[in-house]
């Protein structure tokens, strides 16, 4: 990766595991890929409910300024999160979204966007809850920032005991779908 840090925002509604997906990405990059990742999140009543978010800065060098203002990549899992956070996306940024939950409008120009039916994939695996991990897999494939190995280790270390297998399957689903999309578009 280049020396410039990559700033990511993940948005969704409370209960979707937005923060956990941020933690997995940060953990994979910093602990298992040996670089630096700073995660911040909004707290308080305004951060609960409809549009919660996690911000992660991935960097080869230690991160100094910890907050994300204009993310390079926006991952959204709800329409409200899309509405709230998409105006901040960098002009040439990347948008990743769950296609059954988010309907992007045409107002944002210049960005690259990729979508995935993550909820359906999660349902096929028998647990709608693993939607966030499908999105982590999708993000890993599209961004090419995390090693697959590191992402899997981070998932195993972060999800509840007994759900590792399921979550790894969810990751694989998102990852493979993402890789196919990238291959097709290149």
């Amino acid at each position, binding site marked *: 990766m280049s020396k410039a840090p990559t700033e990511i925002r993940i948005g969704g509604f409370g209960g979707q595991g937005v923060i956990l997906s941020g933690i997995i990405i*940060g953990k994979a990059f*910093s*602990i298992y890929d040996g670089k630096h*990742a*700073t995660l*911040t999140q909004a*707290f*308080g009543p305004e951060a609960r409910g409809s549009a919660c978010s996690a911000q992660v800065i991935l960097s080869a060098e230690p991160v*100094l*300024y910890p907050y994300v203002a204009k993310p390079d990549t926006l991952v959204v899992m709800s329409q409200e999160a899309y509405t709230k956070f998409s105006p901040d996306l960098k002009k040439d940024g990347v948008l990743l979204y769950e296609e059954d939950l988010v309907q992007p409008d045409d107002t944002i120009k210049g960005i690259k966007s990729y979508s995935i039916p993550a909820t359906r994939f999660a349902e096929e695996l028998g647990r709608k809850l693993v939607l966030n991990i499908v999105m982590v897999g999708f993000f890993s494939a599209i961004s090419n920032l995390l090693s697959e190995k590191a992402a899997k280790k981070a998932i195993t270390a972060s999800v509840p005991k007994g759900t590792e297998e399921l979550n790894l399957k969810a990751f694989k689903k998102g990852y493979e779908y993402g890789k196919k999309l990238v291959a097709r578009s290149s």
Partner: protein
Amino acid sequence: MTNKMITADPKGVLTGSHYLDGDHACCEGALAAGCRFVAGYPITPSTEVVERFSARCPQVGGMFIQMEDEIASSIAIYGGVWAGAKAMTVTSGPGFSLMMEHIGLGVMLETPCVFVNVQRGGPSTGLPTLPGQADMMQARWGSHGDYEIIALSPNSPQEAFDLTIEAFNLSEQYRVPVMMMLDECVGHMTEKVIIPKAEEIKIYPRRFTKAKPGEYLPYKPGPDMVPDLVKVGDGHRFHITGLTHDERGYPVMNHICQDQLVRRLMDKINKNADKITHLEEDGTEGAECVVVSYGITSRIAARAIDMARAEGLKVGHIQCKVVWPFPAKRILELVPKVKSFVMPEMNMGQVVLELERIVKGQAQVSLVPHAGGMVHEPEVILQAIKQSLK
């Protein structure tokens, strides 16, 4: 007598690489330092420290109690300490205000312990979920009467871990409550935290007296001005009081005893200030401007300094990991060599007053204030650096 350092009890040390926020890292630092007693009352943004401790303490033979308020929390820990434990309490904003009386009691009883304050925006309820650094003078002066205190301020979860251990060590060495001044940003920021092996963590052990029961004087200072400790139940049948007292711990209501006691309580910190000081310096040799910072603001300052250097300016950086006592000696060395000091703080100008007091007008001192709720924009600090060198 200063004690020989020992190594940490492995039971409390979660060796390995972790992805933790500053609050959780602070809790792990306390556990690694041997802290097994925490009394606290929930308050944002420090609650995660006690949440983690409440989960961890049954695994390590510790005690956690959620008290009825911060006043109770801040004195329950003294019970824990005098019963022979290492103890801390944790709070933020309004809770810190409620603890002030007991900081004074801790100073007076010379009770080693740690007060963690994860600072948020104030005054009053202020900004519970957003950062501030506006309790720095409160940490220094908040309780009534004259005293000296030690306060540390980490700028990352890693430092929250490392400096919490240092805070416990300093509290044991100087027998004073030590303030661990995080802020909401560091407390809630998640980063990699490397926890070393127990045998690599140095611990200052409690200095228990070697005196036999009947011979022990609770406030007879050693050559370093610090008296030895005991614990309840060892047969010393000692007495301690928040009143002005003599070496026996008995109240003495006169100015002579007051003068001796207050001077010693202050001297044991002041005269050891150079040993307590902990700085991180970057490019101060040959610098025309030195930025002095602490806590999260030091990271923003570092970004601003990078930008300034890219423009060819000679800028150095001092990060105060220990804020109180303030590193007067080092600043005085730099005064004749630099044109200016720039001090960004997430308050309207607190620690900068100490900087100005030391510099005495012999160099320019520029404050970069911020009312809190958000860290500085690096560009604002950069502008202050440029302005100060004009």
